[in-house]
């Protein structure tokens, strides 16, 4: 049973999009990052992307790089990630690990799947793993009943949208724009077109949109055409600016209104 599909489906049943929050484990330290994740859950995030720090985050812009760099240097590893997964699950949201591929491969793909399932994780989002290279992960995830989320992009051909969504379980991550993570002034209008194209080839799969969503207004806009709204850099920015868990909570509360189509007061 897909935890992610169930949760996103429940949000849809409420007539809204799911709110998916990304926070990296280990910034400013492991405990504080877990506190921030729990804070996001308590103020309305349905799903937490538990970020695995990585030394070479090629898809991330400066905000996330700035946060993960100290976590990498502090030696934050998969054990810490699994602890965060447990905490998010205990707080009542669905944890999904977000990891570049090498940390998973280094930990051991089978071992990762087994330990992630045991910790209550829904599965993993793998930004630099395409289904063609994911044979071992797909088999391990299937065996452990885990979701696997791959990405589609505005540049994806229809054939690739079809093959990539066919390999997904839980949802498919639609990258709203060509580029790296980071807050942007406006959500690219390529996002809606991509969601439409993706739905056309995979009508039964939830489509969640990430890259560049940072405030309630943008969340409301994306929620009008997508099943889930993914927010990363804006959360991380709260921590970088020293706003701490309180800042995360405030942002989450606004975004939670946004995905319900509302604007913050």
């Amino acid at each position: 049973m897909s935890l992610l599909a169930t949760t996103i489906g429940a949000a849809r049943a409420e007539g809204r999009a799911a709110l998916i929050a990304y926070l990296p484990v280990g910034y400013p330290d492991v405990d504080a990052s877990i506190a921030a994740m729990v804070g996001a859950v308590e103020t309305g995030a349905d799903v937490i992307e538990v970020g695995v720090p990585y030394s070479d985050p090629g898809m991330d812009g400066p905000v996330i790089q700035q946060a993960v760099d100290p976590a990498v240097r502090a030696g934050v590893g998969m054990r810490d990630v699994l602890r965060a997964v447990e905490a998010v699950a205990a707080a009542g949201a669905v944890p999904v690990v977000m990891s570049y591929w090498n940390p998973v491969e280094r930990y051991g793909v089978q071992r990762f799947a087994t330990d992630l399932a045991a910790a209550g994780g829904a599965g993993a989002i793998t930004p630099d793993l395409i289904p063609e290279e994911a044979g071992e992960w797909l088999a391990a995830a299937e065996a452990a009943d885990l979701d696997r989320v791959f990405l589609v992009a505005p540049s994806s051909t229809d054939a690739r949208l079809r093959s990539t969504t066919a390999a997904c379980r839980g949802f498919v991550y639609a990258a709203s724009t060509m580029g790296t993570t980071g807050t942007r002034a406006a959500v690219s209008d390529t996002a809606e077109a991509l969601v439409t194209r993706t739905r056309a080839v995979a009508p039964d799969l939830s489509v969640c949109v990430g890259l560049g969503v940072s405030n309630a207004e943008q969340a409301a806009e994306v929620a009008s055409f997508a099943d889930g709204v993914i927010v990363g850099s804006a959360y991380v920015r709260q921590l970088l600016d020293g706003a701490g868990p309180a800042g995360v909570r405030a942002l989450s509360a606004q975004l939670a209104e946004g995905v319900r189509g509302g604007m913050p007061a």
Partner: protein
Amino acid sequence: MTTSAVSPPMDRLEPARPSWPDATGHFGVFGGRFVPEALIAALDELTEAYRAMRVDPAFLEEFARLQRDYTGRPSPITEVPRFAEHAGGARVLLKREDLNHTGSHKINNVLGQALLTKRIGKQRVIAETGAGQHGVATATAAALMGLSCTVYMGEEDTRRQALNVARMRLLGAEVIPVTTGSRTLKDAINEAFRDWVTNVETTNYVFGTVAGPHPFPEMVRDFQRVIGDEARAQVLEREGRLPDAVLACVGGGSNAIGVFTAFVPDEGVRLVGLEAGGDGVDTGRHAATITGGTPGVLHGARSYLLQDENGQTIESHSISAGLDYPGVGPEHSHLHDIGRAEYRAVTDAEAMEAFALLCRTEGIIPAIESAHALAGAMELGRELAGRVEDRQALLLVNLSGRGDKDVETASRWFGLGEHGAPTDEDDRAVEAGRGADPGPGLDTDQQPTEGAVSNDQAVAGQDAGGTA
């Protein structure tokens, strides 16, 4: 200078292609594509365009013309007997990629990729660079073909290789110092990929080595294999036989793949890649990826890499900016695993000894990168006691680049010239070697050029001859 009958142009890209990679870019278990989905369309476009281009007679003719008239190919083979006296009695031949236009083998690949860029209708190229040689080559090709060019270079490397930064800017390229991570080649590649994913509509990434996602390892190999294709024919012509071993330095590994490829089917020829051993592989401060690393995924491909227990890339260390990279091309990992090539580490000190030796015995200032291959030849020659079976060993070394860019680093290492104390962290190794004995290559008769250095600064060279 040997101007041997090298393969005709039609054969140059198409003869005896290795059976790897497969259609999706795998060299055994290595290679592949580990990149964001957003780049897949561009990689597919490149793959398709490249496959069409490499059998297009018009391209082959244009590429051959540029190599001949612009780069100056074929590069000669030079025998270096005075240097070889320190290689156990083996004979040593150098393949002179240092004599190419722009001063290294990098131009071979860049001309091919620049032609490909025009073919797919893009107006802008980006590149990463470590020592600056690939950046200079890319800036050169961009100037030649009227493309706009941006080069990402680690901030540390912009300091170590200031000459090449100036060259790139003179050629009209924008050089962006990268301040993330270790501020070296690894981080320059990350930034170049970020640029590419953002600007892929207008921009082609001219990748500098045989690493990265498919099709780069295959394509760059094909553009670089001219080195070995020429060298094999040249050695056959002048010696009537193949060399006993072919040696090349390995960072990402493009010059090594370039010289190895023609010899891969020749099982009697040892292929030896020399990695940057830095302070020594056992110190942890090195860039010897195959010797001291483990398989994993970095920069778009599965290959050996330097990583910690969490799968984080470990920062590499080498006196040579061009080898200071914690990854290596997937074909090298495959050649290692199947036992076709062997990989050894050469320390900074060993490389600098060989560097000085070639300068003093042959009048050739090599790139410090290439000096690693020279040190490997000295070591291998001595191991063989100069002989293979009943005849004098014949070693072919790819001299991948010239050392102009390294003059300052070498001067500091040997305590020559007037330089302030090194302050950068990456100059630590240089500082440790300050005033070091440049090694046994220094001729007893050798005198410093009058006025070039003051007497008290030129001690190393004069005192070092006793061990020669």
